[in-house]
């Protein structure tokens, strides 16, 4: 547990971030005998830091460094400094994620080929196919403990919230209703206990039933003696030599002191805002537009999923807060079917919020007060909710840029997170809202209302994979096209968003990348 690598040890892989990408990668590399130093900007939390309290946990673990929300969207008004709801801590956003573990569908890796050019969208096929990734999906599912075929763990029993949505969905004619796959144990698995249906999945799982690198990959990587995790270590810039190879990472420790960790290779896994930000901030005379940015695509094509929430007030108490937060999935609309008037599909995922967050998120606009709000809150225990997780098309303008003058506590330019809807996103969202309303009408809801976007936890696409170096930032293994020993290991690699929650695919890609890095090291190419 106390392995320490020297700052001048250039035999280590430096991994920036300890979440689904970085945490998985560090562990997988350690299993192969490869040394790594993980630089994690956040603190280390213990299980007893995890509370069933929405605001306390929000304040404790969220990434709250200054960010600027921009673009023609409501979030710019309602959450001007919180475009994303993600975690700063050892374990990253795997502390907060809700456990939904859907694979991308085969056609989603080649959406561009399927639908052709769409004006205003920067569509591109992934340089890998579903078939190539499939074995890694199986490994990821076993690794994370995903209910279903790969582990043999049964799906969860339907909680009250899902029963309500499902009753309506079945009457609407939907048939693909499942309480899984989830990386939440339904029985003891991987030395972790079963889900107790406590709720509060997004505040961290107090029981450790939900997979998180916080209490799986990170401590296990450390236990090998081959991985050192440095909490409160904020990566400031990646350095390179005259040949353009990455040589190390300069970071600030918790006291603000600067250090340089030398590296054999560097893997960036800081989520889709920080990862491109770090590459852009690492500009040099050799790479004036930022590292790995010869394509100009670093920070572009930011995708969040096209989302919306619909809640229904039911005739009897539902107690949606009991049980897992995202307790069931409806996949009927996830298909590609252009007759609906849009490309891409969406997943309907039953969801709950506690009273504190429901009150905050129900209508965060200036006008969101009065009896419309309080009459819904008075029926809180009668509510059921569903979240729409839809394909969000890549748009070049959507992305992460650096503010000209504003600096954060480390002196780094503050990121501007710009996002607007493609017309396709709007059509998909409207369709999803209408279908969700139909479900709740069919379930006998007395009142149905829409809850607007809250800060997004699904952030992907800003260092995208491409076959050709001109079209994207990284190749099919997440290695940057421009720099041989620089990798991207998080969701920013995504070429498209799919209609599925991103974590399972991030983990599958990280496991695949670990194999690739190990093979190249064996061949002495790295």
């Amino acid at each position, binding site marked *: 547990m106390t392995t320490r690598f020297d700052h001048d040890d250039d035999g280590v892989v430096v991994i920036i971030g300890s979440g689904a990408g970085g945490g998985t990668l560090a562990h997988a590399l350690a299993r192969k005998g490869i040394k790594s130093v993980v630089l994690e900007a956040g603190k280390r939390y213990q299980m007893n830091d995890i*509370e*069933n*309290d*929405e*605001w306390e946990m929000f304040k404790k673990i969220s990434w709250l460094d200054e960010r600027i929300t921009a673009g023609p969207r409501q979030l710019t008004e309602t959450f001007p400094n919180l475009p994303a709801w993600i975690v700063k801590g050892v374990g990253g956003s795997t502390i907060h994620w809700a456990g939904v573990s859907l694979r991308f569908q085969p056609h989603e890796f080649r959406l561009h080929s399927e639908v052709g050019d769409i004006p205003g969208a920067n569509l591109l096929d992934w340089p890998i196919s579903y078939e190539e990734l499939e074995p890694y999906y199986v490994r990821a599912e076993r690794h994370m403990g995903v209910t279903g075929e790969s582990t043999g763990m049964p799906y969860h*029993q*339907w*909680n*009250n919230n899902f*029963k*309500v949505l499902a*009753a309506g969905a079945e*009457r609407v004619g939907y048939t693909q209703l499942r309480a899984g796959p989830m990386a939440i144990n339904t029985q003891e698995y991987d030395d972790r206990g079963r*889900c*107790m*249906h*406590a*709720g*509060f999945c997004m505040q961290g799982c*107090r*029981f450790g039933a939900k997979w998180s690198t916080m209490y799986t990959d990170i401590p296990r990587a450390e236990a090998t003696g081959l991985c050192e995790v440095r909490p409160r270590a904020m990566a400031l810039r990646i350095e390179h030599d005259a040949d353009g190879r990455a040589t190390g990472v300069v970071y600030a420790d918790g006291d603000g002191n600067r250090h340089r960790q030398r590296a054999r290779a560097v893997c960036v896994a800081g989520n889709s805002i920080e990862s491109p930000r770090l590459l852009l901030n690492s500009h040099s005379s050799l790479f004036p537009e930022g590292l790995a940015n010869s394509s100009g695509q670093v920070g572009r094509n930011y995708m969040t999923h096209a989302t919306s929430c619909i809640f229904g007030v*039911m*005739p*009897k*108490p*539902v*107690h949606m*807060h*009991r*049980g897992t937060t995202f307790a069931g999935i409806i996949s009927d609309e996830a298909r590609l079917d252009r007759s609906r008037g849009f490309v891409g599909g969406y997943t309907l995922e039953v969801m709950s919020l*506690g*009273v*504190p967050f*429901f*009150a*905050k998120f129900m209508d965060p606009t*200036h*006008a969101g*007060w*009065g*009896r419309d*709000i*309080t009459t819904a*809150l*008075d029926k*809180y*225990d009668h509510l059921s909710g569903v979240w729409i997780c839809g394909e969000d098309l890549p748009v070049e303008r959507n992305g992460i840029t650096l503010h000209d003058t504003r600096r954060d506590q480390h002196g780094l330019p503050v990121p501007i997170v710009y996002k607007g809807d493609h017309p396709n996103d709007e059509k998909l969202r409207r369709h999803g809202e209408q279908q969700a309303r139909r479900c709740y009408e069919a*379930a*006998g809801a007395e009142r149905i209302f829409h809850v607007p976007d809250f800060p997004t936890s699904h952030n992907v696409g800003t260092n995208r994979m491409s076959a050709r170096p001109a079209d994207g930032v990284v190749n099919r293994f997440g290695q940057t096209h421009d720099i041989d020993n620089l990798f991207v290991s998080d969701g920013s690699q995504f070429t498209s968003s799919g209609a599925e929650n991103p974590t399972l695919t991030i983990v599958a890609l990280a496991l695949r990348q670990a194999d690739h890095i190990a093979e190249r090291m064996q061949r002495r190419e790295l």
Partner: protein
Amino acid sequence: MIPSPKATTLSRRRFLTLSGQGALLAGGLALGAGSLWPSWALADPDLAAGLLRLGRDIYPHEAIADRFYLEPLRPLLDSDRTLIADGLADLDRRAEAAHGMRYGEIPREADRVALLREIEDGDFFQRVRNTLVVGLYDNPELWEPHFGYEGASWQQGGYLHRGFNDLVIDWL
């Protein structure tokens, strides 16, 4: 807390005028939600009464007692006293112009709400609202009794054996 007789009189009079239920109260009904005020509010009755009326118009729940509105709003009188005092004075001016009486004296909720819609984009209104959206709804004392929200559950072993799937849909 035993308020002084003088302060009680003040607060009660203010409450009668601010609540919009004056007519009902005059008709002999009990105060209902208007339980005893905290001492600071009795000491600062005008601002407290204005804030309370405003808070109850922003997030109206008849069954929730005054103190649950007043307690989270109290810190504003220290941190943002000028903003609050000026904001309430502005609201009173608007009320006088439109209805010939102070904001808190306007009997119809719809009339008060219409005035508030005019100022909802301002700092004063949003400061009060943003304070209350956390202060009122993040109060565990209200969760289960008022909203049916049970709060933290891990200490009781979650809901695995306590009703996570106990719903019988018998209304369809």
